[in-house]
């Protein structure tokens, strides 16, 4: 403590720098909303900071995270109390000497085993089943899923819908036109006629959505925090994951993997709609965009 008192002037000086720093912090707090679209949900709220969860599976991930953090805090606090107590109790002072004999303590061993067992439980009991269900066990056709192809590119998301027939048209890189045919849908494939590509992700509420994710150029990562969904979009691979929205509203899709200079702006909107709204939107979109369909006919 004596040392800290000696440092008092410096601490005051430092504090002043900090107060000066806080002014712009306060000024900046209400950052302008860049998009004019209203985004639903709560973000960064104390104490978990986690965004609103609007998915069927998100709860599992959140539960695991909560248990983990409680576990971590308990361990750290318990451990920290002993640490600080040691520092105080065994500080060097006149009349106090260190004890050469090492303590024979069983407690750390038991604690070690307990921690290991708990980790094993987290892994086998929680993480693995959740992973298997969320990542690998796709819904069957009986669950009436929506199929969407997600194709990432620098710096946009393309959502390719199969249209009313529910079948995707053939795609190939040579048909790509950045403006009229970003997905490279084969114009001669009849199944592709009603396919359409959207820059916004529209999904119906309460139906499983199977997304098949790939990329045209570099590695991106398809991330929807409110859905607790994340999957790298890797060129040369088409990876399927699924999620099920449980609440309507407008949310955001982000890219989580560095993909170039505008990585930060690779944002798309996700609209979760009622079944009827969704169907109306599909109907509307399947009609157009007229440009390329008619040109090729």
């Amino acid at each position, binding site marked *: 403590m004596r040392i800290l008192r000696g*440092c008092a002037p*410096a*601490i005051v000086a430092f504090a002043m720098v900090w107060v000066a*720093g806080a002014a712009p*912090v306060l000024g*900046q707090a209400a950052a302008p909303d*860049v998009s004019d679209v209203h*985004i639903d949900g709560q*973000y*960064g*709220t104390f104490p978990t*900071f*986690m*965004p609103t969860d609007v998915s069927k599976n998100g709860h599992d*991930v959140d539960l*695991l*995270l909560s248990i983990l953090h409680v*576990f971590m805090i308990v361990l*750290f606090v318990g*451990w920290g109390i002993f*640490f600080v107590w*040691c*520092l105080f109790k*065994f500080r*060097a002072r006149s009349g106090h000497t260190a*004890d*050469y004999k*090492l*303590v024979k*303590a069983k407690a750390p061993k038991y604690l*070690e085993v307990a*921690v290991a067992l708990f980790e094993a439980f987290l892994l086998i009991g929680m*993480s*693995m089943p959740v*992973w298997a269900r969320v*990542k690998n066990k796709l819904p069957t056709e009986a669950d009436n899923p929506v199929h969407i192809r997600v194709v990432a*590119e620098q710096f946009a998301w393309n959502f390719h819908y199969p249209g009313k027939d529910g079948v995707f048209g053939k795609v190939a*890189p040579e048909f*790509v036109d*950045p403006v009229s045919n970003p997905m*490279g849908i084969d114009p001669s494939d009849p199944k592709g006629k009603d396919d359409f590509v959207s820059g916004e992700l529209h999904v119906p509420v309460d139906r499983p959505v199977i997304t098949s994710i790939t990329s*045209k150029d*570099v*590695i991106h*990562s398809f991330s929807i*925090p409110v859905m*607790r969904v*994340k*999957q790298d979009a*890797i060129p*040369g*691979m088409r*990876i399927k994951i699924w999620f099920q929205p449980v609440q309507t509203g407008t949310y955001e899709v*982000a890219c*989580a993997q*560095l993909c*170039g*200079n505008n*990585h*930060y702006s690779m944002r798309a909107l996700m609209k979760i709609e009622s079944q009827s709204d969704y169907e109306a939107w599909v109907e509307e979109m399947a009609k157009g965009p007229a440009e390329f369909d008619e040109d090729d006919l």
Partner: protein
Amino acid sequence: MSDHDQGHHHGFLRTYVFSTDHKVIGVQYAVTALVFLFFGFCLMMMMRWQLAYPGHAIPVLGDLLPKLFGKDWGETNMAGGVMSPDLYNSFGAMHGTIMIFLGVVPLIVGGFGNYVMPLQIGAPDMSFPKLNMASYWVYFTGGVVMLASFFAPGGAASSGWTSYAPLSVTATQGQTWWLVGMVLLITSSLLGSVNFIVTILHLRAKGMTMFRLPFFVWAQFVTSFLLLLAFPPLEAAGVLQLMDRVAGTSFFMPQGLVVSGVVQDYAGGGSPLLWQHLFWFLAHPEVYVLILPAFGIITEIIANNTRKPLWGYRTMVYSVIFLGFTSFLVWAHHMFMTGMGTSISAFFATTTMIISIPSVILLTCLLITLYRGSIRFNTAMLFALSFLPMFAIGGLTGLPLGLPASDIALHDTYYVIGHFHYVVAPGTIFAAFAGVYFWFPKVTGRRMSEKLGKLHWFFSFIAINVVFMPMFFQGLAGVSRRLYDQTLYSWGDAMQGWTITSSWGAWALGAAQIFFIVNFFSSIKLGKRVTENPWDATTLEWSAPSPPPHGNFASVPTVHREPYEYSVPGMSTDFFPQNVSEA
């Protein structure tokens, strides 16, 4: 550094520049690495401005840098004093690369390892002194190449320190420089690690059995094996990426890439994941390359300043060996989001959970060492003690990232950044500071100022937590890492206050280093002179003069006992050096 060199009629160049003396090379490594650390940190301090106040001109530097590097550079990279996204990305990539490969590893392995390890085992020098010199100069060249890459057309590498293909393959020329630099740095590490292993095995003084080695030497020994066996696959990967960039091959490029609407003319057939495998095969062991020598340093300091033997020395040695071995089995936990099946992700998650156990053991041993000690709070010890809780936070937050299911929410977010920075910054870098304060008297024959040192510690400790703690909150909120401007997203916007806090923490941390810089340079000339053993320590380096002459020891030491015999009952002093015989 060694004014005891009289009698050796080497010129200035042979004595100070192209020296084969491990101590000179150690100091060269340490000083170069400290300069790189500071430079890497400066890059980050600039990035933190853009993060805190996106689109606002950087004060002072926003004017200065365009003037310094010319109008063209200014217009492309800093129009109106605002950092461009390209510049942001290349600073980000170079911050990571410089901190890890040019800063921390050369400091704790090249610097402390080279200087302290031969002294601790009672050796006159490293086994291959010329190789040692070559290792430093290859590292130096690698560093120069990395720095030069900032002036390559299109700027320095900008694909992250991980350089994931295909982004890195299609990136600007700076990436090629980066690869060449990496190949040089890897070569340097390989030369160094061969030298370390042979030295530790062959040049131990008489009586210095493996289980009488100071823990620091064990840490360096295991680290050298990691460098030796994990680095070459990255060198291979570097060569492959160089081929992709220069010879137009497609090791990492699958068929049908369409960049900006243009179908790329590649043979195809490559795999982007191949790069990640080869990269993480190195980069996970690399984490332990960063942390094990740090553990070694703080173990020395904690044993010395608790004035009692280490609790569980052998357990710690076995743990560190086990850690090193297991670190080769966990690499794909960085790749959970690349589309991985349940069984293989379970495998890597299991190995990840297993590897946490020896880390906990190491921490526990050090904690119990404090129990019934007589703790001296000097600057070195303060830094070493802060390592413990900081590493604990870093380690614990690894758990949610190591479990695939919770990783879904946290992968590639600020949580990851917070996690590994807690391990490396208040962890390893604090350990490195502790080492500087601890061994400075040995190197210069003078002590650093305790008062400035404590100020340095106090403000660094507060500031570094202000920098990194908010990152966990941001990560949980879902903010992706490597974003030039996170306010575009609702969650990023909501967390912007924390970003600003974090930035101010970073600048405060920078300011706190002034204490260190002043202390460091003034103490070289003005510090209090010390004798050979200012800390009343037991290990062999303290039996050599400060600074040790060429050849290290006046007479070849013989070792009689374990490394940390403090407070032995019935002795007049509370330390019993390894080289002092019973009589």
